[in-house]
């Protein structure tokens, strides 16, 4: 590693300081430290603490990205202070000064230390984070298919650092949302074949208005996680099993919304937006709009709809009949549905488990191909 031979450099850290007990408002505090550029932001903070101000508050332990103690925000992005190189942090700063703040969505105890108990751990407790198996125990170990355990390894990689909780956009507006870390933990047990309460767990998490259907699918947690746990992906898997397998018809319209989108695309090839609300609230058929729950929601949406039609935002024709792809193509789409959905087992490719083909690693998706051709 060539980087280790680089001589020490000066780095300036701008830390957000706050002591709720002091009665003073939070303020920014700058210190310049000297370390080799490959050293971590945590080492930088600890040097500032040792050299300049012993009162700087930071929580840490292993310094090797495994204990999950030093979750902070660096230049506005959540991450582990011990897992972020000083030179990288400086490169991503807006003015050459590395900005360190406490994580979001959790109350600050002091400086960079947030109250994980009040939010994160409470939410983890909420999902019954242990294996439930009261039945007769086997003489030796439980024998389970290997694949089913591989399936949950991704959630097991979680180190409970709270980075995903810090950035969760649903929690920002709805603090009671169970949240990404706890729901990823829930999948760890829902996906475990030894657990006996899969359906009960899913019923609980689907019916809770702040459960799996409160996730806004914003990818913040996916991006925040230093361990590639993909919490949002785990929430989608919980939805998949709750809806498609267990048919839990939750009070939050979660499953009906999913069924509505799936059915409308099968029937029209495209989304028929006007049918979304009535079916999600009232049931997944054309008659959904006559259900009292749909009626109430449609009535409250009426001013919006009238305004839209008056502005020619949508035509009445589109609002009533929707739009369709050509018949021949619609038939092709229907055949795809039938073929895929009639498979005895639903197939799910998880790249975290399967990895990617060697040649695929060379071509990042979405970047212009060299040939400059759609082919």
């Amino acid at each position, binding site marked *: 590693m060539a980087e280790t031979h680089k001589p020490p450099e000066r780095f300036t850290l701008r830390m957000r300081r706050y002591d709720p007990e002091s009665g003073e408002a939070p303020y920014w505090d700058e210190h310049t430290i000297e370390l080799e550029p490959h050293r971590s932001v945590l080492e930088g903070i600890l040097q500032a603490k040792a050299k300049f101000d012993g009162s700087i508050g930071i929580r840490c332990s292993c310094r090797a990205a495994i204990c999950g103690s030093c979750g902070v925000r660096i230049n506005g992005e959540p991450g582990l202070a011990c897992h972020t190189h000083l030179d990288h942090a400086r490169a991503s700063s807006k003015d050459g000064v590395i900005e360190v703040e406490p994580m979001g969505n959790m109350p600050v105890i002091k400086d960079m230390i947030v109250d994980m108990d009040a939010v994160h751990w409470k939410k983890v407790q909420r999902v019954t984070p242990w294996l439930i198996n009261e039945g007769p125990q086997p003489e030796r170990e439980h024998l389970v298919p290997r694949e089913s355990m591989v399936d949950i390894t991704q959630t097991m990689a979680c180190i409970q650092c709270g980075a995903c909780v810090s950035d969760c*956009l649903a929690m920002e*507006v*709805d603090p009671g*949302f169970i949240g990404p870390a706890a729901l990823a933990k829930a999948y760890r047990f829902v996906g475990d074949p030894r657990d006996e309460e899969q359906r009960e767990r899913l019923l609980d998490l689907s019916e809770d*208005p*702040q459960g799996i259907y*409160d*996730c*806004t*699918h*914003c*990818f*913040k947690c996916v*991006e925040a996680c230093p361990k590639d746990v993909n919490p949002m992906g785990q929430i*989608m898997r919980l*939805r*998949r099993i709750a*809806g498609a397998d267990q048919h839990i018809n939750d009070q*939050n319209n979660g499953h009906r919304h999913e069924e509505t*989108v799936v059915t409308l*695309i099968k029937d029209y090839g*495209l*989304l028929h937006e006007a049918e979304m*609300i009535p079916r999600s*609230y009232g049931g997944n058929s054309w008659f959904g709009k006559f259900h009292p729950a749909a009626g109430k929601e449609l009535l409250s949406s009426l*001013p*919006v709809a009238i*305004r*839209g039609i008056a*502005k*020619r*935002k*949508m*035509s009445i024709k*589109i609002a009533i009949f*929707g*739009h369709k*792809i050509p018949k021949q*193509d619609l038939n*092709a*789409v229907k*055949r*795809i549905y039938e*073929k*895929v*959905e009639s498979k005895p087992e*639903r*197939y*799910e*490719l998880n790249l975290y488990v399967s990895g*990617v083909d060697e040649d695929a690693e060379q*071509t990042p*998706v*979405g970047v*212009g*191909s060299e040939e*400059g*051709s*759609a*082919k």
Partner: protein
Amino acid sequence: MKVAYWPGCVSRGFTPELHGSMAKVAPLLDIELVQLDRASCCGAGVIAEHNQELADTLNARTFALAQQVDGAELMMNICSTCQGAQGECQERLDSSAEYRAQVNSTLADEGLSYEKGLTNKNFLWLLVEEIGLEKLSGMVKRPLTNLKVGPFYGCYIVRPRDRLGIDEEHPRDHYLEQLIETLGGTVIEYAGMRKCCGFPIITMNKEASLKQAGRHLGDAVDADADCLVTPCPLCHLNLDMQQPLAEKVVGRELNMPVLHLPQLVGLALGLEPKELGLSRHVVKPTSVIDWSTSVVGAAA
């Protein structure tokens, strides 16, 4: 340039002014749109939530149709959600030859097959990477002078960075700011510009959904923006169509016009607000229309 054009559903349904303005703007930029009329909805992540292979197969069909367009340089979409949802499917398809073969065997009934390595770019990426900001600035007829524009990206086009190919060379999460500047406008940065509009949970938790929209719109008001611009029609639904309801949830007047990306580009290329469908928005973009007339007045 010729592109296989995927307009998406919402741009032809509840935000027809998006599809309409794209059609007006394309010839001015010398883009030939070959519309993928036969393709189906990308599923917006919801089909994948139901059955991943189904979503992957439907989108592989769209990709295969795009690859059949003679002479097209790439596939272009005008929806952040399409970009993200299709990109997620493409990542799986491109990562495994075995999986691709499995999906292609379903498409074989129709004589279609997806070949790995499609280039699928949102109009925003195409503007910056294919046309280029320098060339674009030369096409500007009515610079957006003094128009204060706040970007609103939509989650699907900024996260996750790796999958979307966002890096130092392709700072795609900063393209809107670059574009607004190129068109002569003033960029307004505000807290919510890369956050979630709340649309995905509008039927599940309406209050939380509208609180998200209302909060970001409020941030933009406080930052003194004249309007927002978004490459995502689903964000537009929550930010514009639902804005009157969002106002009630956050308890403040917002009155923040939200423009679709091609509309903003069209204004700078000299098109009139009306032909770009600005009158079709729920929140009347008075500030933008006033601005456009004041510029005309100044020029005359």
